[in-house]
């Protein structure tokens, strides 16, 4: 989540920005000089066509601005929809006959190309928004806890403690040098995997990785750094999930949908509460769904 906030608006890199500006430029041209645009695409210029071109221009401006300011995939999908609409309009013009066939064909080809680019980019952006890139989910979170690095390290190193603050974990048990992890996916589906520790430097870092053949290949790395000014320990957590290639299993997909960087931050906050106050801090509203002394907390507020 944090890395997204820092990423330039308009999505991943230059192409995103380019599409936004292109949309804006094209839109402005269509609004200012609808006649020229009509002629360019090979149609005959008349007042009705100019109005249509102006309307399309306005749409391009809105979509361009929307995408440039918010950088959200839905603006690109809006563009794809617009491209399809434009293509339909072009084909109607072609059928009507009073147009230059060559230019129309060229304009149509360009539209198809742009539409494909928009769709590709929208899909890529949509995936990025969910932290998934090429089927991989990379997540990170940090928190500062008022105690020594050794204390947090020891608490974490005992993996059985993890389900006390990591919401998607049901249980972790140490087993002959390895550990067995159970995760809870919605609808009562359970996933399990075995993991081994790959790096273990007391008071500094722990890294682990699921063993070959796991239902959900994943690995994690947690670093403990002394905070400046004697303010305790900075805990830096990085998790990577690598869903099995091809189609995700239903359980894996459901579990991954439940995991986000926001949740991971919440998990680390619970770790801080456990270490600093001895317990996970709860209000009635944060644990009950029905009526209770603080009354129901529904919808997005019931996030765990």
């Amino acid at each position, binding site marked *: 989540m944090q890395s997204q906030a820092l990423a330039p608006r308009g999505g991943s890199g230059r192409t995103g920005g380019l599409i936004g500006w292109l949309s804006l430029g094209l839109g402005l041209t269509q609004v200012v000089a609808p006649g020229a645009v009509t002629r360019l695409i090979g149609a005959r210029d008349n007042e009705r066509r100019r109005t249509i071109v102006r309307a399309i221009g306005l749409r391009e401006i809105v979509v361009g601005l929307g995408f440039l300011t918010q950088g959200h995939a839905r603006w690109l999908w809006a563009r794809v929809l617009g491209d399809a609409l434009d293509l339909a309009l072009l084909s109607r013009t072609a059928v009507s006959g009073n147009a230059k066939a060559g230019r129309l064909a060229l304009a149509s080809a360009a539209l198809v190309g742009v539409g494909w680019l928009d769709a590709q980019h929208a899909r890529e952006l949509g995936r990025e928004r969910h932290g998934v890139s090429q089927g991989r989910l990379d997540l990170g979170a940090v928190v*500062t806890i*008022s105690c020594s690095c050794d204390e947090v390290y020891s608490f974490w190193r005992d993996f059985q403690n993890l389900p006390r603050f990591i919401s998607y974990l049901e249980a972790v048990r140490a087993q002959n040098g390895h550990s067995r992890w159970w995760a809870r996916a919605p609808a009562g589906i359970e996933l399990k995997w075995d993991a081994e520790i790959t790096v273990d430097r007391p008071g500094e870092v722990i890294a682990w990785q699921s063993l070959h053949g796991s239902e959900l290949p994943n690995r994690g790395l947690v670093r403990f750094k002394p905070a400046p000014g004697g*303010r*305790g320990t900075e805990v830096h957590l990085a998790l990577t999930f690598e869903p099995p290639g091809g189609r995700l299993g239903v359980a894996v997909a459901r579990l991954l949908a439940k995991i986000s960087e*926001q949740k991971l*931050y*919440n998990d680390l*906050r619970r770790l*801080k*509460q456990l270490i*600093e*106050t*001895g*317990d996970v*801090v*709860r*209000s*009635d*509203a*944060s*644990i009950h769904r029905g*009526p*209770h*002394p*603080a*009354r*129901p*907390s*529904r919808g997005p*507020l019931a*996030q765990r």
Partner: protein
Amino acid sequence: MKANCWYGKEKVRVEEVPDPALLSARDAIVRVTSTAICGSDLHLYNGLVPTMEKGDVLGHEFMGEVVEVGSAVVNLKVGDRVVVPFPIACGSCAACQQDEFSLCENSNPNAWIAEKMWGHSPAGLFGYSHMLGGYAGGQAEYVRVPFADVGPLKVPAELSDEQVLLLSDIFPTGYMGAEMCGIQPGDVVAVWGAGPVGQLAVASARMFGAERVIAIDHIGYRLKMAQGSAGATDVIDYDESDVHQALMELTGGRGPDACIDAVGMEAHAHGPMYAIDRAKQAVMFETDRPLALRQAIRACKNGGTIAIIGVYGGFIDTFPIGAIVNRSLTIRAGQCHVHRYMRPLLERIARGEIDPSFVITHRLPLSDAAQGYEMFAQKLDDCEKVVLKAA
């Protein structure tokens, strides 16, 4: 049990709700004897605070008797009479260790919502939206008090509920407002808003040695109380005179040495700016109307301090940053770190130096909470502060 629940703009009613239970070894359950309606409850009542849900139990100023304690609560026992501070604080995080209890890093289970709005989360509060924890409030017969080993203050039997109840919020809040002003002997302090917090800010400013304290409001009986009971040396009724001009008149053109904004997000004023702010607030261009704050910044003397203790929730427009920078003004603000002030202020009350109960004008049974809210919001029957008797 019975509890006063929020159901939307200007809709509260006393309902039967489940009794609270201990959720942690550090919890206590308090049977409420007295609970007050706070000016900041009116922001909830007026529907200006996000993440409220229908049925939420209101109230963050309360006191009562301990009826149950968790195994880790060793400082309290069943039967103790306690006042409970409105911020919930763990006592062990970095903020609590620095006595910044309203910034407790652990007490808000919904910290992520507050972070979305404010960048970081402050402490959880009783009965004050889900963004601030979703804790059930104290306008009820019973309350679950988390971190009962840190917050509740035992009060001596010889002091009445009304004398000590306001230690839960508004007395320390007014006091912290005056403290943030860094008052020196001879100072002139102006206080915007003669509501209950404003009254106690006036009284506190006098306690810190301000030579003159000017109360600003437009409600006659409140200004009368500020002058008659709180200790204001002067009052300005903004219905009758221009605040800036009157302040210049009263301070020889220097402006007050310190200004306290005890008004917050729902300020009233005269002139076009008021209409503009109301309109902006109505269409969500700004969440808060900073009319008192703008006046305070404009009036404050060069190099002076403005302390904000009135509640603001979100965003404001037309903020006079130029005046702050070019005239070396200091802005201080905060939700009160109540735990820090309760004990010393209790001692002052016990010594008879001050009796903050002068602000209380109405006493009602808890079952009449809705009427209390309406009276306080509409300023009916010269209402200044409503106390609800829960037992």
